């Protein structure tokens, strides 16, 4: 199995995990809206996962960059730029005192992330299948060494 196939497999699993985390964020934010949760609890729960999520996203981007998977890299670029922007401005964490004010903005951001990760998941799935199928037919034509 070539390295390309391996990174798509890992990207697939990662995209699944990120999708799940984005959905979790959305549900937590709606819980806050419905008064099921107080802002301090929300901030504490969500802030634990903010940096890991950004790190995972960045890792995927770097791997695609290094492996020469240009299309996959380009679609991840906007989100990486957005994350970098937030970290540079020190805005990435949820602040318990401000969160009610900026609630709709956060919800929208997380909805967009859910949609993005969902599309990424299917794209990586498709790429993985195509890569695997192509290399299996290629080897047969080129003559396997086994």
């Amino acid at each position, binding site marked *: *199995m070539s390295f390309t*196939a391996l990174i798509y*497999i890992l990207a*697939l699993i990662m995209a699944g995990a990120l999708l799940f985390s984005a959905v979790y964020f959305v*549900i*937590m934010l*709606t*819980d806050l809206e*419905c*008064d*099921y*949760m107080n802002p301090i609890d929300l901030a504490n729960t969500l802030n634990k996962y903010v940096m890991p999520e950004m790190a995972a996203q960045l890792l995927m981007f770097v791997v695609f960059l290094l492996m020469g998977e240009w299309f996959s890299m380009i679609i991840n670029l906007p989100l990486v730029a957005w994350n970098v922007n937030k970290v540079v401005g020190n805005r990435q964490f949820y602040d318990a005192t401000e969160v009610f004010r900026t609630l709709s903005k956060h919800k929208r951001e997380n909805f967009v992330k859910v949609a993005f990760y969902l599309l990424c998941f*299917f794209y990586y*799935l498709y790429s*993985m*299948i195509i890569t*695997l*199928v192509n290399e*299996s*037919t290629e080897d*047969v034509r080129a003559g*396997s060494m*086994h």
Partner: protein
Amino acid sequence: MTSTDNILNQNETLEIRRQALAEIDHAKFGWFHVKTCLVAGAGFFTDSYDIFAINLCSLIMGYVYYADAQGSAANTTPTKIDMWVKGSTQLGCIIGQFLFGYLSDRLGRKRMYGVELIIIIVCTIGGSFAGNTARGLSVYWVLFIWRLVLGIGIGGDYPVSAVITSEFATTKNRGAMVAAVFAMQGFGIVAAAIVAIIVLACFRSAIDSDQLMLDYVWRIIMGLGVVPGIVALYFRLTIPETPRYTLDVEKNTHRAAQDVQNTLGKLKQEDSSSRVLLQSNLQPEVAVSKPTWTEFYHHFKHWRHFKVLMGTAVTWFALDVAFYGINLNSSIILDAIGFAGNGSPYQKLLKNAGGNIILNLLGTLPGYWVTVFTIDRLGRRTIQFIGFTVLLILFCILGFAYHKILDKSVAGFVVLFTLAQFFQNFGPNATTFIIPAEAFPTRFRSTCHGISAACGKIGAVVSQLGFFQLKDRGGKNEFIPELIQIFALFMLVGLIFTWFVPETKGKSLEELNDEADR
């Protein structure tokens, strides 16, 4: 105590009951509800993962255990053995659905929940370690035994998960929640195919050099299915009893109200009125109404109650008979979209798995989720009518013009097939699961859901064991058009019996079953 005291106490009990139910019914949709769906859905995820996995694993096992067979039988599991290994789970399901359906009404949802998942986990792991005995039983028959018991666990999941979700759900979203639990089946199939592709890719060089290394592959694919189940197990074992069961069957109003507070408790900041009522000293009532055969008989001897049960059972039966029929054609479809199995074992299996992902993403998965999002707006009966009607039309077209379509346009065939899969899941497959979880009184809900589900599985078994034999009458795959015509007939039966089931959208479980103020 004076009689006024008695009346006062009775009114307070009713008031607590009404309030507890209102709290559940009108709670805003939150993480608690999502968690309920995920935990309940884990069983269905594992179920469909497993059913897809056995299809693939049976193929793989052919390469391992029949590699030495001669001629065209080489590398293929013999049909009869294949049929029994796949059918064993279905047989076990029937037993499990009846058994767990009844037990969950008799002993309580909480006591049974988790038991069926334990059975599923143990038997899946056991099955993935199946081997030949020294004398007598081949690995296939050992697997058969494991899968028979696995079926009991899977069957048990149907009524218990459906009823628990239904009883914890809000009235507005009940349809969507129960449908979402069922929709986990779609994820199970896709997950199984993805896991299969990944494992195959990892073993690729091993397989190409020595075909028998495929033995590892099928065991790993099968065994990995338990992972979501294990995660869900903890949550299943720690749920509180559903308040409705505690109220209506155990008649313990006090504890029910407390359970509601506990489950939704994290969610409510303060609910002063119910707390005040809780503090008043009420004795839990001693009279318990257990579902017995006599009560069952007395309830269902009225036509207006019995027709509901007959409706749900017969429609589920009719649907499952035809459900199998759609899958008869998947090899043709795979061929058409370029994923036919040609070449080395690795290539064939890889393409089979990849093609199945695409197939399911096209029709099945969207169908499930369209149902989730529209069921509380359109209603169960509407969707079931739509589904059966469209399926009737599609099966008639496919049945009577099978060869003409295939010859003229394979793409057209693929489209019809995908539409059929879509309208099955945006249609009777989902609604026959949802309606029995709502349309019966609490003390019979799980039993009747189990009965309906078991009738469905009987239909599936009849279809697999019976019609499968007919498929090759007159030549290989020659009888398929006629089979599809027979399935169209079953769709008609399902359509007719849909008249008997009530529309349950938007009504609370108590309204539906005249239990409002008992």
